[in-house]
């Protein structure tokens, strides 16, 4: 997994609440068997019309925003289907940080597995970032994972966020969960010895 420490980037504002993973990557694109190449389908039905042409009013089609690596959106971002194709598509498109007042649990987990940083900030701060970036396509912010801080260039916005220390450590170092867990092999084997054939709460 790619490590993440800090990022200074333009911001794409997607001022909608409850953005679900069916919108982030519609189901017709889930049939690929690879992890890569999903960026072209990101927000497909919002980005493209029936003929496959870009909709000029969609934020990621606008010249000032399409190269932004930070996406800022409304509450409960990433709700719905567990598809990890959603963070894969965002990452492949070039989004490295998503800022929102809240995230759905599975999407939030999936981001950390892929080096994408979900940042939870208070509703009023998120609204301010959305407004600033809507007003000015050149508006930039810095997101620093080590310091757990977000700020803009003239420091009108300075906000702190919180990431569990374990997740922060993994993301800062690009660590793979599986490798870490395999270090606990003795514990897993010992658990298995006390486990019944049917598992659950039944003991052997």
């Amino acid at each position, binding site marked *: 997994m790619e490590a993440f420490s800090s990022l200074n980037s333009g911001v794409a504002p997607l001022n*909608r609440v409850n953005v679900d993973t*069916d919108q982030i990557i519609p189901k017709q694109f889930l049939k690929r068997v690879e992890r890569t190449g999903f960026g072209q389908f990101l927000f497909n039905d919002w980005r493209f019309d029936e003929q496959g042409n870009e909709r000029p009013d969609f934020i990621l089609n606008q010249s000032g925003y399409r190269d932004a690596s930070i996406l800022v959106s409304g509450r409960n971002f990433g*709700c719905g289907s567990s598809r990890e194709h959603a963070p894969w598509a965002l990452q492949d498109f070039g989004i490295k940080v998503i800022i929102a007042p809240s995230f759905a649990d599975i999407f939030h987990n999936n981001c950390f597995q892929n080096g994408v940083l979900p940042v939870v900030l208070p509703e009023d701060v998120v609204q301010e970032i959305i407004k600033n970036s809507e007003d000015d396509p050149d508006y930039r912010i810095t997101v620093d994972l080590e310091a757990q801080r977000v700020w803009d260039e003239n420091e009108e916005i300075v906000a702190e966020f919180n990431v569990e220390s374990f997740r922060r450590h993994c993301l800062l170092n690009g660590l793979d969960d599986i490798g870490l867990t395999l270090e*606990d092999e003795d514990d*897993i084997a010992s658990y298995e010895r006390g486990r019944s054939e049917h*598992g*659950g*709460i039944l003991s052997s």
Partner: protein
Amino acid sequence: MAPKTMFEKIWDAHVVKAEQGKPAVLYVDLHLVHEVTSPQAFDGLRMAGRDVRRTDLTVAVADHNTPTWDLSLPITDPIAQQQLDALSKNCEEFGVTLYDRFSPLQGIVHVIGPEQGYTQPGKTIVCGDSHTSTHGAFGAFAIGIGTSEVEHVLATQTLRQFKPKTMEVRVDGKLSPGVTAKDVVLGIIGKIGIGGATGHVIEYTGEAIRSLSMEGRMTVCNMSIEAGARAGMVAPDATTFEYMRGRENVPQGSDFNKAVAAWENLTTDEGAQYDQVVILDAEELEPHVTWGTNPGMVAPITANVPTPEDYDDSGDKESVSRALDYMDLEPGMRIEDIEVDRVFIGSCTNSRIDDMRAAAKIAEGNKVSESVYAMVVPGSNAIKRQAEEEGLDQIFKDAGFDWREAGCSMCLGMNPDILKPGERCASTSNRNFEGRQGKGGRTHLVSPEMAAAAAIEGHFVDVRVWRG
């Protein structure tokens, strides 16, 4: 010992390792796998030279991409075929049991898990699918995970998890005739919102929940994720044990009785505290219909479609306005006046034998409206056979419903069963997101009874007073 909730008992029994500030390493008793969210995970194992640690605790099913047309006909989508082939190849290479399209026991993963007795009280169950919450109906802790986590479980049989909070959702009183498990869960989501249970495991309690069949409890737990919950659970009881007795993969004979004694101890202890409590009155619940583009945008059948001005929050105003536009509905119109083009009865929410029976009861002696195409898709081959033995297929066919092979079908539009742009569907599935059932399609979530009645009338009706 401090009193514990059912969730805490199961959690504590599965912690392999817990360290301060780190997610617990949690043992997984059952790992269900399907074709859409697993190919990249198997690839990851291959690249790292890792095996599937416990093939005996891993079960794979082909369900999302499978057409529901006649099994002798080929799959016409080459990319879907490729994904199904990848699952077959991976299961063969890694030694995982697979229920493929031609298995006599094939079906939707969340239908056949319980049906084949894999799903049991007290287990930890995961699947790369958000509707894994279904299995919580048996008093299991069952959660949906992403593909990286699928790979983690395949390699280690454990999952790293931060402990979720708990929420009790108590539904007191008795449900009126015509008000179903689907209406209970839609009513709950309508009340707490689609992010209302984020970070929480819901335990459903109360008289109305206890009186539900296992099929009904699965419907409720299935849609826990639509309220944002990590999982939904119902404590096991006599209804649970009767459903399980004698099923393949369940302890048999005297072992079953011993297991029941242990499972009965799972119940939340008296005095145990939940982090949140929500209470509903079953007697106030009506049949529900979603009018918008997420499951929280829902109203009783006797209500009207809302207007954006009904909402205080600016985000809600904007999303309601967008939803009404997408759904092509007039603010303030009667829900009963919404006309449908298509009806879909099926999905991991509502495709079990009870659902088939309930829909057939409405269909019997009636005819599907000429303006509607209606399909019934049983959740598994076993359910299909049982329904046919009971003559339900004939009732549906006589009424003009299309009777299909088992699969996920039009719940998510990954197979040939999809809506055309602009088509409006009464659906017993779980998500009404934009484009969920086909690009530009419009979905209204309802119970099987409400869907069948809408098929006959061509618009929504209140099944409590409707006489076909």
